């Protein structure tokens, strides 16, 4: 079996509302999978489940063959699952370098070693010019990049990006696409990308997983999903 992070029939309920219902998602290592769906579809909840922030009410979370639905975020982070947040969540009073250092420290070791790893992540994401600035003082588009740098400094096997392009204009989006496309090879990791901008999705993802109201609407290679009548009706048709 290839290395993968996946869910099996995962369900999450919030006060009776099914945020996720029997969702099977597979993120193979080395691939970029797009996670699509209208607002409220359950995308962030699924990322929370995969990263240990949300314990599912039903189903399994599998990292390779290990069942991890009871593991907390700290434990999943140490096992190689990194994420960004839709609301960014940087360490505002730490510098950009220190933010990335925090990612590198997930595997223990000294600050000296962590700083070296952090510098690589900062170079990879093109943040050298702001490396010594406080994270809280950065413009929005750069903040999102710092979030990615911090996650990459963890040298994750699986990276979950929750709307990394939100609020970016076209040029910034293009830069981001180029950055994300380089990740699987450079870090030997799988990327789950939540994104509304269809041109970003089409330019980066090999396969897609579409959610609507907590259920899987379609899943598979981009061309297959793009032509699925249910998807066209419910989601893509409107976009």
């Amino acid at each position, binding site marked *: 079996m290839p290395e993968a992070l996946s869910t099996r029939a995962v369900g999450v309920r919030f006060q009776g509302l099914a945020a996720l219902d029997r969702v099977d998602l597979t993120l193979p290592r080395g691939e970029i999978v797009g996670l699509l769906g209208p607002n409220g579809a359950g995308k962030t909840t699924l990322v929370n489940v995969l*990263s240990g*922030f949300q314990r599912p009410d039903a189903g399994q979370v599998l990292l390779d063959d290990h069942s991890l639905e009871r593991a*907390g*975020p*700290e434990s999943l*982070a*140490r096992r190689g699952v*990194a*994420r960004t*947040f839709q609301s960014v*969540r*940087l*360490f*505002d*009073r*730490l*510098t950009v*370098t*220190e933010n990335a*250092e*925090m*990612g590198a*420290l*997930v*595997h223990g070791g*000294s*600050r000296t070693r*962590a*700083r070296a790893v952090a510098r690589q992540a900062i170079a990879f994401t093109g943040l050298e010019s702001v490396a*010594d*600035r*406080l994270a809280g*003082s950065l413009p929005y588009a750069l903040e999102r990049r710092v979030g990615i740098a*911090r*996650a990459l400094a*963890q040298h994750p096997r699986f990276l979950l990006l929750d709307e990394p392009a939100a609020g970016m204009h076209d040029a910034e989006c293009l830069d981001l696409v180029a950055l994300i496309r380089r990740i699987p090879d450079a870090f030997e990791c799988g990327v789950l990308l939540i994104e509304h901008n269809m041109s970003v999705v089409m330019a980066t993802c090999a396969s897609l997983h579409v959610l609507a109201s907590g259920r899987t609407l379609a899943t598979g290679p981009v061309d297959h999903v793009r032509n699925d009548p249910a998807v066209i009706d419910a989601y893509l048709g409107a976009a």
Partner: protein
Amino acid sequence: MNLRRPRLFPATGLIAVLAVLAVGSRLWGNTLVEGALTEALLYLVLVVGLSIFVGNSGVVSFGHIGFAAIGAYASAWQTCCTGFRGVFMPGLPTFLLELDMPVVTAALLAGLLAALVAAVVGIAIMRLGGIAISIALLSLLFIVKSVYENWDSVTAGQSSLVGLPLYVDLWVALAWAAGAIVVAQIYQRSAFGLKLRAVRDDEAAARACGVTPWIQRLIAFVLSAFVAGVGGALYGHYLGTLAVSIFWLDMTFVTIAMLVLGGMRSLTGAVVGTLAVTATREILRSLERGVDLGTLHWQAPQGSQEIVLALILLGILVFRPEGLVGDRELGVRKAV
């Protein structure tokens, strides 16, 4: 924080400034000033101890003076009142009654006892959220006070304990303050310090980096209780007498005022705040004693010390909520 600066900066710079002040006050020969500076340095040990936890975790602690009390009495148990220890504190175990511990070892062991208590209560308290921790720590101060006041046989709690060796002078205070600053600096620059500041800024994001928030808070809490415990021990040997009421809300308020006034998150802030508040208190104290202006004798009303200090703190919180120096450190360009 700029990592390219010398390894022990700003600690070395701060210690140099304090040493210059100490030598200056001795050369000046003004005993009032020298006494005030000695007291400031002793408070600095407490404030630096407090800042290890508060500055890095962002959680205000109203309980650290409880650790100072624990440290002060622990040192008294080991060194107090030669020959009369059993008379004042008949409840002490025999090995303590016969002990003749060197004062430095006694201070370190006193700090260790405070750290041990912090470790035990911290396992529960550090799992709480921010404001709940502050409230729990205030309760801890109340508990320590009740226990020590009523545990008469080892604390002479209803009266005062007299006859502690008076070994703390300006230089002893300076040495321990320097030690506290170095400890705080090393912690602040360690991976532990960085992780706790990350927890302070965003707990969820810190967890996503593999950090368990309460464990990081606990590490800082134990270390800061150790320093506060040593600070309490020194204070006892500066006064020569101990009463539980010394380690109470006054001292809690003054130490927090020192930290907040200078800048909660910076070591330089702790030093500046401690010196500024001590100077203010000394001036107000002498005004309370009265001043002669030519033929006129004017005396500030009793209690002006506390009121003016509270007003200054209020002013700082309103107009300069980050404190006098904010996040800056001595000799370090501010990151923006």
